[in-house]
């Protein structure tokens, strides 16, 4: 109860994220209104939600990896790989969908396992480890797939196309994954270990945590979620494409979304809800800019500016309002209190 009173008085960084989101929606609504279009029309809302689903999958995984103090630059290649792999196995037959999905996710999990083991056991920085595995996968893709290949059957394509009201099914699946990730972080031992290891690996080790476990778990989950994003893109495009991931720039965009959502790039602090807010801000910005016909190149300029400015605001806040040691419960303490 005391905790609640404090939270209400001080604005959390997640709170700021959602304030920025509201501001983005208001500005977006005005700008689209000036172009004689309704921001809240079904088509527009659906487009925004569809955008959130793919980046959302990747960003949820990226949040876990960043929280544990690592990074994942291999996601775009995992996305491409899972898209061509699943398309190849499905080969247009509805009967093959289940085995294609299972096999693809297993391969993705294997890549995540490799990433996690390289980071935790070999002691290689996540940046280099995942840049390396990403390059290895991209070499494999470039050698074995020249263009788009395989095809998805109609039943599988429906996942990308179906919707309940204005909400696409893919967005619902993404939100389901987000809920699972939130439960993982808040209610499980591994989740708490992720925060502990990300905050200070040496202290976590001295407190008796086997530090490699949360690192590996975070990397495996991140790659599996990237695999899901690849499957979703396959269901939309209906053919596997070996360049779909790198074209989307999902590595840097997902990191940007995570940081925009208030998570510390150094790890140990942040949450999934903030990340979802960050993804939504990107989605609203993209949709508004395409409605008012800003060229895609200038969209990049705006994105770059927003990312840097938003993070500057958090960083400023971090410095000025850092509590005295032991004064206020941190995110982990709050989570622990709640878990009790």
């Amino acid at each position, binding site marked *: 109860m005391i905790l609640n009173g404090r939270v209400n008085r001080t604005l959390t960084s997640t709170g700021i994220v959602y304030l920025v989101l509201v501001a983005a929606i208001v500005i977006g609504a005005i700008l689209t209104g000036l172009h004689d279009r309704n921001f809240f029309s079904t088509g527009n809302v659906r487009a925004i939600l569809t955008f959130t689903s793919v980046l959302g999958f990747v960003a949820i995984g990226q949040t876990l990896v960043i929280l544990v103090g690592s990074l994942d630059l291999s996601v775009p290649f995992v996305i491409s790989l899972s898209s061509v792999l699943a398309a190849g196995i499905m080969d247009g037959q509805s009967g093959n969908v289940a085995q294609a999905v299972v096999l693809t996710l297993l391969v993705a999990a294997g890549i995540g396992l490799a990433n996690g083991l390289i980071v935790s056991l070999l002691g290689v920085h996540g*940046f*280099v*480890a995942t840049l*390396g595995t990403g390059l290895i996968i991209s070499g494999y893709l470039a050698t074995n797939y020249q263009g788009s290949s395989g095809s998805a059957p109609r039943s599988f394509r429906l996942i990308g196309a179906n919707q309940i009201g204005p909400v696409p099914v893919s967005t619902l699946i993404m939100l389901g994954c987000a809920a699972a990730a939130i439960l993982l972080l808040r209610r499980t031992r591994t989740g708490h270990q992720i925060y502990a290891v990300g905050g200070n690996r040496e202290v976590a080790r001295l407190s008796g945590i086997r530090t490699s476990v949360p690192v590996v778990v975070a990397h495996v989950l991140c790659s599996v979620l990237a695999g899901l994003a690849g499957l979703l893109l396959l269901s939309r495009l209906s053919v596997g494409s070996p360049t779909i991931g790198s074209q989307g720039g999902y590595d840097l965009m997902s990191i940007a979304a995570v940081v925009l959502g208030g998570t510390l790039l150094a790890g140990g602090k942040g949450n999934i809800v903030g990340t979802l807010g960050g993804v939504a801000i990107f989605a609203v910005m993209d949709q508004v800019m395409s409605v008012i016909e800003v*060229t895609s*190149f200038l969209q990049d300029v705006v994105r770059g500016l927003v990312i840097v400015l938003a993070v500057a605001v958090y960083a*400023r806040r971090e*410095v000025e309002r850092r509590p005295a040691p032991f004064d206020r419960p941190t995110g982990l303490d709050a989570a622990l209190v709640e878990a009790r």
Partner: protein
Amino acid sequence: MSNLAQLLSGPRSVGRPAIPAHLRSWPGRLLSSLATPGGAIFVLAALILVATIAENPNFGEPGVLIRFFGRTAPLAIAAIGQYYVIVSGEFDLSMAAVISMQVVLAGNFIGEDTGRIIPGLAIMLVLGAFIGVLNGLATTVLRVPSFIVTLGMMLALTGIVKHLTGGAADGNPADDFREIGRGKFENVPVVEVVPYSLLIFLVLAVAAAWLMRRPFGRSLLAAGDNPEAAHRAGTSLVWLKTRAFVLSSLSATVAGILLVGYAGVHPSVGQGYEFTAITAVVLGGVLLGGGRGWVLSAAAGAFTLELLFTYLTVQGVESTWRPAVQGLIIILAVAVSGRAWTAGRRPRRGARRTEISTAPPQPPSPGTTTGEVDA
């Protein structure tokens, strides 16, 4: 030989007290520095060079070899720039975007007008320095992680460049300007030609090695190793890191000027350079996260990487496998060099524990409850 034996067995395990590495004779120091990640890269480069020449003797011709070095010079210059930033504990992802911006600028501003070469060069350098200042101030004053700052800069610059050019190649600078990148001194004895790009690289490399021995370089290493300690020691982190970012952007600018000569004008020139430069620096044994590494090793890393690609080509490996090899190499390099740096840094955990236990605390003398020291 005794030096080598001592080196291999490690300083702690020998009976007589080990001489500190910096007090040994110069061959000894050379040998021990070759065992560090920063020195090992030169051995690795030599090995790959020998292997390549063994496979394709043509590559061993001085003329062919020096052209190869000239071709790799832009990457090595970019690696030197990236080194300043990495060794101070930061990243510069905007390098490729700076290169493509400068290339397009050269194409559009200089064009066919030879008189505009000097002002064009001046504008490019000033703009490069300005971008470095922006990156540095955003990282240090606004306290945004450099990864995010330079990512934002990359998005913004590529966006502007593609918006202005429409994503296609246009404008070709005067041939005199392109000569900077692709020109060479002819009729040189032994090596036939000396590319200008190689000379520019050599000048910058010497300057970099000198700079890293100056107070600036020492502080940069200190700031990368422990920013808090460097700050307490009186270093201005803001000005220091900003200078590192300026040097990085300027190196990217020079690399861009040279690349115009080789590749012509297209917004995609320089694509992927940031990650290749980081790979080269890391391969040169520089610790990601800052504080360790030699600038010339970073440059050697660039040459080693290109040599490796040449070797693979000679071996008949498909060029599509290049990225995979690059990926494998950086993981291995960092895994090995990370171990080596920590090994040199402090005694192993077991060793430290025994050190503590060999000096047991003096048992308190009985009866001194007043706290007086028994003399």
